[in-house]
């Protein structure tokens, strides 16, 4: 029908192609390699040996082919090594190549024999034919035997400078191979520098291979500053980009993506030169180009015409990727998922290409569904819903479930569509397909949370399906609905009672929910349900060994028995609405992933450091800031600053339910019940308290890269949180500091209130001496000592770098791991002169924790005093302070003592002020000076403190004046919203109270999540 299909006929008559293809398969099959597999097992090796040593060239080659064939199917033919190597000296290129193939496979197991081949290799490297030269150097690099690699250096050096570009490009790759075998050798021989020079080679293919080799070396060896990109090299790369092969283009584009342009003009000019790659037939080239553009776009001003043009140009190539093979589609979809989260405007009109086709593989279907929801908006919701309804009737269970969930997400995301979504879900429930019904009930519960008092009319329909629910999540959701709307369901007590029968067989999720629901029911209809509530409380507290369930049971029990009114307020409190977007990737992570578009990280939606083996040095990539907004050190979260409208991140469906469950618990902190006396109550409060402390102490442990995975084991708060006994001791009024406070972890606290040392010192900010952070022993001769100080509103890290090694150190750079307060170096580490042995220098630099030089990368952790984070405008208004103070529930306080402090209250106040801890008020009660103080952290969190100073007693019985400091964390929260706080695996939701616009509310939690609070604040 087409030219291609008819061409064979035509061409066999008209012209004689140089390489005719496949004229006769039948005949051909007789001549094929399959005959090599049919040799008899018996004496096979012996036969081959004889043939290999034959005088006839032809027979030799046939024999080598048989050997190779056996090798490819995994037979062991290593015994023939000497015989095969003997065939190497030949002018027949095919025979030579076959022998090389054999060598590469078996040299490792026969290193002594392999050495026999070296002479031939070295000779071949001098051959006049560039193909042979290249082949020799290429093969030598593949023989992973130390003895051979030694001989490789000289030929390789020559080949790197060969006149023929084909040889040069092969040699470039060989450097990477050699580095993989023996990195030290490559460095000692100076091959890395030669490789760097090849970036400026005149041949684009050589440039591409040099870039590929350097990138690979840099990945396994992050300290070497190999790809030192500057405008000149960038220009060379861009020129080579136009001329090299498709694979070379990928290497070059990936390398370009690591560059940070100096300004928006450079950024634009690079974008302009990269854009044509979007029309390449190779999808990997397209996606790498998309990565470069997505990254450099960040620097372009939004009002620029070019910015809009670029946005428009990005959509078609992404759509085209979706018409490729399913495997390519899958990777493309995972990346598009990231792109639509970062820049939804690119694909907002392309909804239809994500519609699922019947014969798409399941992994493509699921990804498409995800993107459909992300792109759903008021404009296209009708279409989307019609599609989703269609999907919900398909065969594949996973896909159907996800489609039903998607309908619920649409309802929550697009308010106008909620009604239609609910009626669609009801239709689906009518199908009575078991798993559809269960999914529908789970999502309807979320819809109730989002739009209370709107769709409760459907409850009757839901209740009809009660019996068919067999999955915990669906059961829990249904129970929640029954409990929440107990007053509208006539037989709510019967329904819940029916669940209660098999209480112990239920999962924890269902048990907790059932407990809460019955308590709610009791508070709503106390008369009929007394027996029921008794029953569930006893089941939960006495017959269960699940601590969560028991604790919650006790709390309810005490609440109900001590103060039913308070109980009502607590349990039936109005719930915050759930947010519209679910499953969003955290903004900072999203930024990092955008920098990794097209890589495995983008498929897994995890940073490479989280999964790539041996990537200890993988650096966290960040998007460049937009034009003009230089990042200052004090910007608490540069990531959030770059995002225009940072979306609130709330956990996905499963977590939401967990939140729901715990919702009923936490109002204890906001409604202000009388101080709890029972153990059950205290537990709850202690959890919150220790959370706060945990974070306070946790921040003294600014996550050092090597430690970041397990900081909680070293922080004080972690201990307290995990140990109720200690927590209880802590709650007791002015106790002395628990012993563990003196643990190394609390050094920062000591620093902060270490007033004693300051008697003879001039008034000034806390100025501790430098400490050795990285001993020379651990860092191949580089010793780093330093200290953190706050000067003129800027946090600074002063470091002394001392070279105690014998050789000169150069190429210094510094990087910080991500940390709670978003501290980052303001500028690169500027050490202009190489560091000679025993020389030390003191650059003034701003803050923290991986230092590299020409030798290696070194990691160390150092604590910075928390006082450094206190900002200058931390002085609270008196009135605000007063109101805030009153609003803090007592159990949010923590106290400890400072010993050996010889200051009077004024001196203490002055000293604290110099560290940006401001005294708001002072009063004297019974000979005690009370100082009320406020401070504010760089991330906007307020800390209020009360300092009690006993006037100096002339007869010191104890040589210490005890100062009691009440310190607590509070956060001024401007939004009525709920915050998720994670404690290890459990999550808590701490709520707001209604009037929080006027009175600040208090959040205790891990610092990680205080970042989230920051996002709310900006909103």
């Amino acid at each position: 029908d087409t030219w291609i299909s008819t061409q064979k006929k035509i061409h066999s008559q008209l012209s004689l192609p140089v390489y005719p293809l496949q004229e006769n398969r039948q005949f051909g099959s007789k001549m094929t390699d399959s005959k090599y597999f049919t040799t008899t097992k018996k004496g096979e090796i012996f036969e081959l040996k004889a043939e290999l040593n034959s005088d006839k060239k032809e027979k030799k080659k046939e024999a080598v082919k048989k050997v190779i064939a056996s090798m490819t199917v995994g037979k062991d033919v290593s015994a023939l090594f000497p015989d095969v190597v003997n065939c190497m000296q030949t002018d027949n290129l095919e025979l030579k190549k076959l022998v090389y193939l054999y060598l590469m496979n078996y040299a490792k197991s026969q290193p002594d024999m392999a050495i026999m081949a070296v002479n031939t290799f070295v000779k071949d490297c001098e051959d006049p034919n560039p193909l042979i030269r290249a082949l020799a150097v290429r093969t030598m690099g593949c023989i992973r035997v130390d003895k051979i690699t030694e001989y490789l250096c000289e030929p390789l050096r020559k080949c790197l400078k060969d006149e023929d570009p084909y040889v040069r490009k092969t040699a470039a790759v060989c450097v990477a191979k050699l580095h993989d075998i023996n990195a030290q050798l490559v460095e000692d021989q100076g091959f890395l520098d030669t490789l760097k020079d090849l970036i400026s080679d005149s041949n684009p293919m050589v440039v591409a291979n040099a870039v590929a080799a350097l990138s690979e070396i840099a990945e396994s060896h992050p300290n070497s500053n190999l790809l030192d990109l500057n405008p000149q090299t960038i220009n060379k790369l861009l020129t080579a980009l136009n001329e090299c092969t498709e694979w070379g283009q990928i290497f070059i584009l990936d390398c370009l993506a690591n560059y940070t342009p100096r300004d928006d003009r450079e950024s634009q000019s690079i974008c302009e030169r990269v854009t044509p790659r979007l029309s390449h037939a190779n999808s990997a080239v397209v996606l790498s180009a998309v990565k470069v553009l997505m990254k450099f776009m960040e620097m372009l001003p939004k009002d620029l015409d070019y910015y809009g043009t670029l946005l428009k140009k990005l959509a078609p190539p992404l759509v085209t990727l979706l018409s490729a093979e399913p495997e390519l589609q899958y990777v493309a979809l995972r990346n598009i998922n990231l792109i639509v989260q970062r820049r939804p405007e690119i694909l907002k009109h392309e909804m239809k290409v994500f519609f699922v086709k019947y014969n798409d593989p399941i992994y493509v279907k699921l990804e498409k569904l995800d993107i459909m929801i992300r792109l759903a908006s008021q404009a296209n919701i009708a279409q989307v819903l019609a599609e989703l309804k269609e999907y919900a009737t398909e065969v594949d269970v996973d896909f159907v479930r996800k489609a039903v969930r998607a309908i619920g997400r649409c309802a929550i995301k697009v308010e106008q569509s909620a009604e239609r979504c609910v009626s669609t879900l009801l239709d689906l429930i009518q199908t009575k397909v078991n798993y559809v019904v269960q999914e529908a009930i789970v999502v309807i519960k979320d819809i109730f949370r989002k739009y209370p008092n709107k769709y409760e009319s459907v409850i009757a329909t839901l209740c009809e399906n009660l019996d068919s629910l067999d999955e915990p999540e669906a059961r829990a959701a249904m129970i929640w609905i029954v409990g929440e709307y107990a007053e509208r369901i006539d037989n709510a007590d019967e329904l819940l009672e029916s669940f209660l029968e098999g209480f112990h067989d239920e999962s924890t999720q269902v048990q907790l929910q059932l407990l809460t629901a019955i308590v709610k029911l009791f508070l709503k209809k106390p008369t009929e349900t007394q027996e029921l509530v008794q029953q569930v409380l006893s089941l939960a507290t006495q017959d269960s060994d699940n601590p969560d369930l028991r604790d919650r049971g006790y709390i309810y029990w005490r609440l109900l028995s001590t103060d039913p009114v308070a109980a009502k307020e607590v349990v039936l409190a109005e719930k915050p609405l759930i947010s519209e977007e679910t499953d969003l990737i955290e903004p900072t992570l999203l930024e990092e992933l955008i920098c990794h578009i097209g890589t495995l990280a983008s498929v897994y939606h995890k940073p490479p450091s989280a999964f790539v083996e041996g990537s200890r040095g993988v650096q966290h990539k960040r998007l460049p800031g937009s034009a003009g907004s230089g990042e200052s050190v004090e910007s608490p979260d540069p990531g959030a600053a770059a995002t225009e409208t940072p979306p609130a991140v709330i956990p996905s469906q499963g977590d939401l339910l967990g939140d729901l469950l715990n919702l009923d618990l936490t109002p204890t902190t906001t409604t202000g019940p009388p101080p709890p006396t029972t153990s059950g109550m205290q537990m709850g409060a202690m959890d919150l308290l220790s959370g706060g402390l945990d974070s306070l102490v946790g921040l003294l442990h600014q996550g050092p890269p090597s430690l970041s995975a397990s900081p909680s084991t070293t922080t004080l708060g972690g201990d307290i949180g995990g140990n109720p006994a200690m927590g209880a001791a802590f709650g007791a009024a002015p106790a002395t500091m628990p012993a563990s406070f003196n643990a190394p972890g609390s050094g920062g606290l000591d620093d902060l209130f270490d007033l004693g040392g300051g008697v003879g010192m001039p008034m000034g900010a806390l100025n501790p001496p430098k400490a050795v952070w990285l001993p020379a022993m651990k860092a191949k001769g580089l010793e780093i000592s330093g200290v953190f100080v706050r000067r003129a509103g800027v946090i600074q890290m002063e470091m002394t770098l001392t070279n105690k090694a014998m050789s000169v150190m150069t190429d210094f750079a510094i990087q910080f791991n991500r940390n709670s307060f978003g501290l980052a170096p303001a500028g690169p580490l500027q050490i202009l002169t190489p560091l000679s042995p025993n020389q030390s220098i003191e650059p003034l630099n701003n803050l923290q924790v991986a230092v590299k030089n020409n030798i290696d990368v070194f990691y160390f952790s150092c604590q910075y005093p928390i006082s450094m984070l206190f900002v200058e405008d931390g002085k609270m208004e008196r009135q605000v302070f007063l109101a805030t103070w009153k609003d803090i529930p007592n159990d949010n306080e923590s106290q400890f003592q400072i010993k050996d402090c010889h200051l009077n209250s004024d001196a203490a106040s002055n000293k604290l002020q110099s560290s940006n801890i401001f005294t708001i008020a002072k009063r004297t009660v019974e000979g005690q000076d009370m100082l009320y103080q406020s401070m504010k952290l760089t991330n906007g969190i307020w800390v209020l403190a009360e300092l009690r100073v006993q006037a100096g007693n002339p007869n010191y019985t104890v040589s210490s004046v005890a100062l009691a400091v009440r310190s607590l964390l509070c956060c001024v929260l401007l939004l009525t919203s709920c915050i998720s706080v994670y404690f290890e695996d459990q999550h808590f939701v701490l709520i707001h109270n209604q009037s929080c616009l006027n009175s600040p509310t208090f959040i205790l939690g891990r610092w990680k999540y205080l970042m989230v609070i920051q996002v709310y604040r900006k909103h």
Partner: protein
Amino acid sequence: MIHSLFLINHSGDIFLEKHWKSVISRSVCDYFFEAKEKAAEPENVAPVLQTPHHYLITIYRGKLFFLSVVQTEAPPLFVIEFLHRVADIFQDYFGECSESVIKDNVVTVYELLEEMLDNGFPLATESNVLKEMIRPPTILRSVVNTLTGTWSNVGDTLPTGQLSNIPWRRAGVKYTNNEAYFDVIEEIDAIVDKSGTTVCAEIQGVIEACVRLTGMPDLTLSFMNPRLLDDVSFHPCVRFKRWESERALSFIPPDGNFTLMNYHVSSQNLVALPVYVKQSISFFDSGPCGRLDITVGPKQTMGKTVEALMVTIHMPKAVLSANLTATQGSYTYDLATKVLVWDIGKLNPQKLPNLKGSLSLQAGAPKPEDNPSLNIDLKIQQMAISGLKVSRLEMFGEKYKPFKGVKYLTKAGKFQVRT
């Protein structure tokens, strides 16, 4: 980059392995087998799998799995593209890409793989470069070789394309008859809902070229209506700047067959469907049976005949048999796969084909929940459904007059009608 390659057949045997760096044990494939076990259909195995130390990136082509092992943070698209390229080359060399053919040519395959990748970096992936280095198996050479006894499958000079900035073309090409033919092939992807409304429709187009021209010809292909093409991807030979400024394809072609460009006409431009389908498939609540009634008619064919028309229906599992009458063509119902295929052939606009009759269900089975979906196959010769037309082909750089020609073909891609 790419560490190793395993070729795995349909039943899960590894029949070839190749390592470009150190040797990785076959046992790494166990993770893949596990995933394959879980996925019911081989098509549904996820293409990227994570194992404790490696990544497995797989494609499924011609009932074979090409499984590559990656150890570092490599771009998966790069790997997938490369694997498809390997399969393409096998296809090109051996005429098909199957287990038996690969086994028959295992040494050539091995030589090819060695030549395509060095240390995990692609080395030569252009078919014409490879063919200069490793000759494809041909009967002619086999005969010559057996006679003379001095044969070699391997070229001993550096392929000319390897280093020039047109790597896709070799020097010194000679033909007695010079020809340049182009096929414009368009596939319609569409979803039509129950009521007959088009939910979405788009066209995936491709221009396949078959160019056999002597020397270094420089071609320019221009279109009557290039405005249709706003979403294109080109073979590396196409000069992008010329396309941007003149909307014409200017290129020095590779020798032989190649894909010149792919394009995509999206749903924003109105895509007209060539046929309509009237269907009703229903199952009765009362008894274990249902009814089926399908009619296909022409819609937008620009006077051309619709050929090779075929309707494929994946029936619900409960459907035991079908008792139908077709006014044209024949139907088959495969009990095992539950697929009903109605092969219609040419569509006659005067007498619309119809398939009608009853379906019987397993006794006692509940009424099926899922609605079957119809997949349509069709072909229309001499028409590109998007309306794209080539206006002319010019040649520069060489003196002779080549034969030229363009053919058009429209096919159904993923053309689906919901019920």
